């Protein structure tokens, strides 16, 4: 006798489902628990499983059709079985649907109770009458097997230990036809897959996860490092900045010839007074502070998306690459300090950062950040803003280039600056002005004296 496959009610609010995709064709063999059709609800896509063994005799709806819950969507029965009666049933049911609830209510209560009793006892009988040895029962229990699935080879069909063992070993695990097909498509070895369906049946999801594991295993020659600690902190800060602040990056080529000259002259002076060697880093920091002092609308930050803070102090952070990642020590009130003191402080704080002894206070309070990659063969790049700053300056290498100066080709020390700014709080023109002013200071470093 063919059985109707009903559209299940998967949640309290589910009233209908849309047929997405038939997983089996009419005439395909079906086992109880096999996924037959994918149905979309307003929330999820579900697989409707067969509730009896047999053959998929008839699909009643095509993909895209919307069907109310508890409605028959297919017939499953013996091969070649005539389903015309069932079809008629469905049609008459559809017409009588409106008074269906009434007819149930009209049936005598005693009859309904009787049916319930028969249902429950037949279930108990089914499982209780299985002939099995104590150890077979024990083994089946330990392995979550149902004795109903095992054929006994002992006297009178008694299930013995060996039957449970061979059932366990059986390479032909219980598997849905879809999972079977997927396993051969994906070349997944079934003996290594454990089923999560009813009675350990392998279902589609098991193959999907097994396949995923398989692919992961193939790549497993790579070194794997847990994503944690400072790496994770950097990652979340980068993402936060990159995805919340709309970045605009503008670049400008700077003629550093004068700055190179300045450094050459100041180097022995500062070395004598401060015992440290002046580098371009400090000159650029100092020049940036000077340009920030002229452009106070760059030395800002957005607080809680409520207020724009115009900082009084010019505190410049500069990115230092350390073994585990990246830290940004902060030089305070840079505009108030001379190059000698600045160099000394910058060297000291960078050293602390590299040794990992820097304090969290020394990493806080920046109002602007500089990321200098001048020691590498990098000309320009688009840096990510170090939140809560509103802008960051990327520094490229200094390289001698032929430049046209007053109609003449001259060899000049050139450098590219890249300014990324948060367009939410800084407009393009002020940013361009800042960059232009900075260019002016670096190309005419005597302005630092002002």
């Amino acid at each position, binding site marked *: 006798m063919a059985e109707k496959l009903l559209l299940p009610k998967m949640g309290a609010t589910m009233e209908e489902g849309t047929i997405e995709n038939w997983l089996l064709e009419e005439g395909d063999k079906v086992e109880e628990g096999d996924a037959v059709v994918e149905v979309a609800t307003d929330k999820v896509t579900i697989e409707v499983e067969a509730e009896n063994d047999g053959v998929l005799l008839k699909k009643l709806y095509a993909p895209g059709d919307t069907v109310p819950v508890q409605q028959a969507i297919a017939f499953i029965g013996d091969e070649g079985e005539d389903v015309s009666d069932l079809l008629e049933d469905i049609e008459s049911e559809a017409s009588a649907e409106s008074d269906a609830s009434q007819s149930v209510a009209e049936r005598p209560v005693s009859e309904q109770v009787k049916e319930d009793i028969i249902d429950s006892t037949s279930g108990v009988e089914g499982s209780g009458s299985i002939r099995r*040895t*104590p*150890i077979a029962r*024990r083994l089946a229990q330990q392995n979550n097997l149902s004795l109903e699935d095992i054929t006994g080879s*002992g*006297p009178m069909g008694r299930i*013995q230990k060996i039957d449970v063992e061979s059932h366990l070993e059986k390479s032909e695990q219980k598997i849905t036809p879809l999972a079977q097909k997927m396993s051969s498509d994906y070349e997944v070895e079934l003996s290594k897959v454990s089923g999560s369906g009813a009675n350990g049946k392998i279902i589609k999801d098991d193959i999907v996860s097994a396949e995923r594991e398989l692919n992961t295993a193939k790549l497993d020659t790579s070194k794997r490092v847990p994503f944690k600690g400072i790496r994770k902190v950097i990652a979340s800060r980068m993402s936060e900045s990159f995805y919340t602040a709309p970045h605009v990056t503008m670049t400008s080529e700077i003629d550093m010839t004068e700055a190179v000259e300045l450094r050459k002259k100041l180097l022995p002076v500062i070395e004598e007074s401060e015992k440290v060697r002046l580098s371009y880093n400090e000159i650029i920091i100092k020049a940036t502070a000077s340009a920030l002092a002229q452009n106070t609308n760059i030395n800002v930050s957005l607080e809680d998306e409520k207020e724009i803070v115009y900082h009084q102090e010019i505190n410049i952070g500069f990115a230092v690459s350390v073994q585990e990642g990246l830290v940004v020590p902060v030089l305070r009130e840079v505009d108030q300090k001379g190059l000698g003191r600045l160099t000394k402080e910058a060297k000291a704080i960078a050293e602390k950062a590299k040794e990992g002894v820097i304090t969290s206070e020394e990493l806080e309070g920046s109002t602007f950040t500089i990321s200098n990659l001048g020691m590498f063969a990098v000309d320009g790049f688009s840096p990510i803003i170090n939140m809560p700053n509103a802008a960051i300056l990327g520094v490229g290498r200094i390289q001698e280039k032929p430049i046209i100066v007053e109609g003449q080709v001259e060899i000049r020390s050139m450098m590219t600056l890249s300014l990324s700014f948060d367009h939410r709080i800084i407009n393009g023109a002020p940013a361009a002005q800042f960059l232009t002013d900075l260019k002016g200071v670096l190309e005419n470093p005597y302005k630092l004296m002002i």
Partner: protein
Amino acid sequence: MREITYANAIKEAMVQEMRSNEDVFILGEDIGVFGGAFGVTSGMLDEFGPERVRNTPISESAISGCAVGAAMMGMRPILELQFSDFVMIALDNIVNQAAKMRYMFGGKTHVPMVVRLPSGSGLGMAAQHSQSLEAWMAHVPGLIVIQPSTPYDAKGLMKTAINNDNPVIFYEHKGLYNSKSDVPEDEYDIPLGVADVKKEGEDLTVIATGIMVQRSLQAAEQLEKEGISIEVIDPRTLVPLDKETIIESVIKTNRALVVYEAVERSGYGAEIASLIGESEAFDFLDAPISRLGGIATPIPYNPSLEKAAVPQVEDIIEKVKSIVQK
């Protein structure tokens, strides 16, 4: 090590004990010059004289009565009854007296005696001389019941029996008297209540007693060729019984068969089967616990029928196969 017979092993144990302990003596019918019905005591008269190797009238009642009295007075008598079947005449002395004295007198006396009982079928001795009634004895509190299956076990257990302060029923199998095995010349004890795993196996545990131990081992050899590996356990002493070894073995093999010569119905094998069923081995059983014992018939005189009345090697093989279902 030298090989000696089961009969000589028993004699050797008795001789060695009598040499070292003046209190030990033996009494029975025709045990002197004749050497006993099965020759077990041959030569003992020459060594120990008629005082300690005492021929008695043909009265098991008298033999057992004298023994109980002597034992209570501090001697350690060994009684030889020609056939275990005759123990019926001695039962009042053994069951009502020997088995009860120590208990009833609150330990003020005890009855250290060994009742030697040649038992079993297979020698054409017909219904009154071939029975295996060890279950009767095992049923009586106060009696120790021993059933050795090899010369080695017989010697060690006889020494233990003689030195035990309780009445000991010592079943000797007539069919085993001429069987041989390695037996140390020196004295040694085999403790009571310690079973011997005669052969290890995987598929089924056979618990066999008396001559059935040998038959089970022969069956095991043939079954091995067919891929069935059986474990053969000889309890050696029925009272006390080594339950632990039996249960552990059944937990390992998942199957149990008790093989005994006595009539299957109400035999001691039923006791062993029951204790397995009641034990923690239950959850490990993969087949019903089975018994293979004698047919409920007086032992026939006709040799073919006599054979058919008690389990033979082929019967054991067939029974094992029906249980193992391999």
